[in-house]
């Protein structure tokens, strides 16, 4: 009897063990999605189509103003690294000259921080249509001459190649990746805004790198060698939100976040202000701490 009870106990244990293992009726929908919320959204989506389209910002003011300022780098920029330029050396490193990393250009004397992009995010009106006189985007000695290049949508750009060797210019996220024959060139007319600046490369010489930013309204400026920038002819009398970008900044998508409470400067690298007609608003010297850049 004793043996029998023990035996049945043993088998029962085995059975329960087998049954319990791997037997959980789990039925999950898409993980992380809220199913009934999705149901509601779908209801609104399938509902009758709305006129929609882009809602242009309301035009509230008249006249035009100018925004200017100057970026300086608060910190010590290390010596720029030399780029690995191992192809076509007879051209790319002529006379042993080295191509340098240009992602952080600080003016020695003025401490000015070059190549900071400032543009207005949304505007209601523009002073004049894009000019048809082409801008020039040139490359020489395996380097794009302009590290950061701003243009207005609709304005033609002459992409040139002043080198004795062939290049190609590849504007990522655009429809443009063209052969640029030695000494030749082609014209590109940007069709769409880039949002944040987009990278330009030459696939033949992978170290070649630049950035381009296209804006519909053309309200965009790139800080000069001394760090100064100016955006003229901005629509006055309405709140304007500006976006600030730098290649090296630690913020999301290169947004340059600064501690500027007076301008309501956000971590997304934006500040807002309203210009009076014919005002030349100088937001003064903007100190960019080393921590703001991914140095």
């Amino acid at each position, binding site marked *: 009897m004793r*043996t*029998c009870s023990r*035996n049945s106990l*043993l*088998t029962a244990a*085995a059975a329960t063990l087998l049954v319990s293992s*791997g037997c959980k009726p789990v039925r999950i929908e898409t993980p992380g999605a809220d199913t009934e919320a999705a149901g509601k959204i779908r209801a609104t989506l399938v509902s009758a189509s709305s006129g929609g389209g882009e809602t242009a910002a309301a035009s509230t003011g008249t006249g035009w103003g100018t925004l200017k300022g100057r970026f300086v780098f608060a910190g010590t920029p290390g010596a720029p690294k030399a780029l690995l330029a191992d192809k076509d050396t007879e051209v790319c490193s002529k006379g042993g000259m080295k191509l340098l990393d240009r992602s952080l250009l600080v003016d020695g004397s003025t401490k000015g921080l070059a190549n900071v992009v400032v543009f207005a995010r949304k505007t209601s009106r523009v002073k004049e249509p894009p000019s048809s006189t082409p801008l020039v985007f040139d490359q020489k000695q395996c380097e794009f001459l302009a590290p950061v290049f701003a243009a207005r949508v609709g304005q033609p750009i002459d992409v040139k190649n002043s080198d004795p060797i062939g290049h190609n210019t590849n504007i990522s996220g655009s429809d443009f990746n063209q052969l640029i024959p030695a000494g030749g060139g082609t014209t590109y007319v940007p069709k769409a805004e880039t949002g944040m600046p987009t990278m330009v490369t030459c696939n033949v010489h992978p170290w070649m790198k630049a950035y381009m930013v296209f804006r519909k309204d053309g309200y965009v400026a790139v800080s000069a060698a001394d760090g100064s920038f100016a955006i003229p002819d901005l629509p006055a009398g309405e709140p304007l939100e500006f976006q600030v970008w730098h290649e090296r900044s630690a913020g999301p998508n290169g947004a340059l976040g600064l501690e500027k409470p007076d301008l309501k400067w956000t971590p997304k690298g934006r500040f807002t202000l309203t210009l009076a007609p014919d005002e030349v608003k100088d937001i003064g010297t903007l100190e960019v701490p080393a921590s703001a850049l991914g140095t």
Partner: protein
Amino acid sequence: MSTVTSPSTVHHEHAAAHAPHQASFLSTYVFSKDHKVIGLQFLFSTLVWFLIGGLLALAVRWQVAWPWSDVPVLGKLFAQEGGQMAPEFYTMLFTMHATVMIFLVIIPILAGAFGNFLIPLMIGADDMAFPTLNMLSYWFMWPAFIAFGASFFVEGGAASSGWTSYPTLSTNIASSPGSGWGQTLWLLGLTMVGVSSMLGSVNYMTTIILMRAPGMTMFRLPMTIWAMFITAILQAFALPVLTAAGFMQLADRTLGTGFFSPEGNIVNNWMQSTGGGQPLLWQHLFWFYSHPAVYIMILPAMGMVSDILTTFARKPLFGYRPMVYSVAGIAGLGFIVWGHHMFMSGMNPALGVTFMVSTMMIALPSAVKTFNWLGTVWGGRIQFTTAMLFALSFVSMFIIGGLSGIFMAATPVDIFIHDTYFIVAHFHYVLFAGTAMGVWAGIYYWFPKMFGRTMNEFWGKVHFFLTFLFMNGTFFTMHILGAVGFPRRLADAYHYETFHHLQPLNAFMTWCAIGMVASQAIFAVNFFWSMFFGPIAGRNPWNANTLEWTAPSPPGHGNFDFQPVVHRGPYEYSVPGVEKDHLMQTDPPNAAAAALAAAH
């Protein structure tokens, strides 16, 4: 029950001689050098792997029957994919199924478990010739267990180039996920199994030649021992080739030696830097071992079945010497037929003709054995014990397995059925319906000797019936699948118009396979339950003749409590003029001799 009374002095001597061995638990049960413990260690490990291999087979069958459908239990591994099995996972499944079944189950359970347990007992020795080697031969299995088991969890997963691991699929790391770490581990595991078998076979040969009890001449050895002996020889001669080949493949994979890869062979846009090798070289080397291995996987079972048949037919083995010669013949011919695995491989067709002839000839000794088994059953007094049923089914199924081999041996027919389910049916009839049945027969037959208790006969027969039924349901249908040309190793064959209509048949086979595995639960419970609560068995529950039945059940350390002396062959059943229907090999010759004299 024949209880052999022995001079008490001898008994005491033995007890004294072996007293010091009663050491710590570790040295008694884990690192024991006692052939019986080692045998049981082999038995338990291989049975566990048998279960694993069976489950792998089920997963394979599931995919074959219902490709890409939600796999039960396993499906949880592929939750994001909706429970659908990835094709490379399927290739890993059948590769590891074959690997586990061949290298971790059949070979070790025959040579390792039964060989170890039975050889000393049946020849009247108190242990193996080299107990330490014997222990090592078991513990070398563990690296193999670990290597094969671990390979599922390395990057890329387990080996996926089939158990034959043909180059360049296996040598070229880029050719398949499993050809990465999985394949390397596979080769390492294989080598370990090889070492283990080699240690075993050296041991068996020495033991059988040198340690037979007084009076036990070679031609008084039971068939089991003969089979084990010849198997050991086969292994000793064939294994070095495989080991060498394995190391060559390892070198190909790790050092880029390129023994097996031709020049400029591009896989997955990855061009092999080395070349100058020949993929066929591996096939020759591999099959030079693996064809004899086929006989390593069946001969011991044949031997055990012969003994069991005689015991329960209560009749001498029909044609003892022809049986021995045919085993030897199979072993000899086994070395010159490997090419019949390569008829379609691009090997010189003229060479194919040669191998075809030798292959036809190797069917001969098998036929002789079959006829002798029939002769043994003829005119006996058959007792339908579980062991006997399994042994009989071995004979019945081996006939099928043997005959289906002739189709493949006929080269022109092989053109059509090569690598189809016909061959799958063939080797499952030899290895599962044959060897596995023989193994079960052996377990039911020698269980009393192993644990001193008999297994439950009723559930044993239920187990036999279900296994026999489902097994034929699964494997016999494979023949007709093969006749359609249904190729093996296809994750989904139903998009071929030729095979589209075979899905229902495959589904049926898969259900049978599931039933087959499920019914092993009966065996498992019966096995472990009987181990503790089965009825106590005496020394000789089956009234058999061979020496092991004169020892206590289970035999103590040193096996025999007296020195067995052999007076006759192992199969003296139903001798006219003898009151009991069996004459044990140790029975003193006096009365029996007279009776025998009268008989002849």
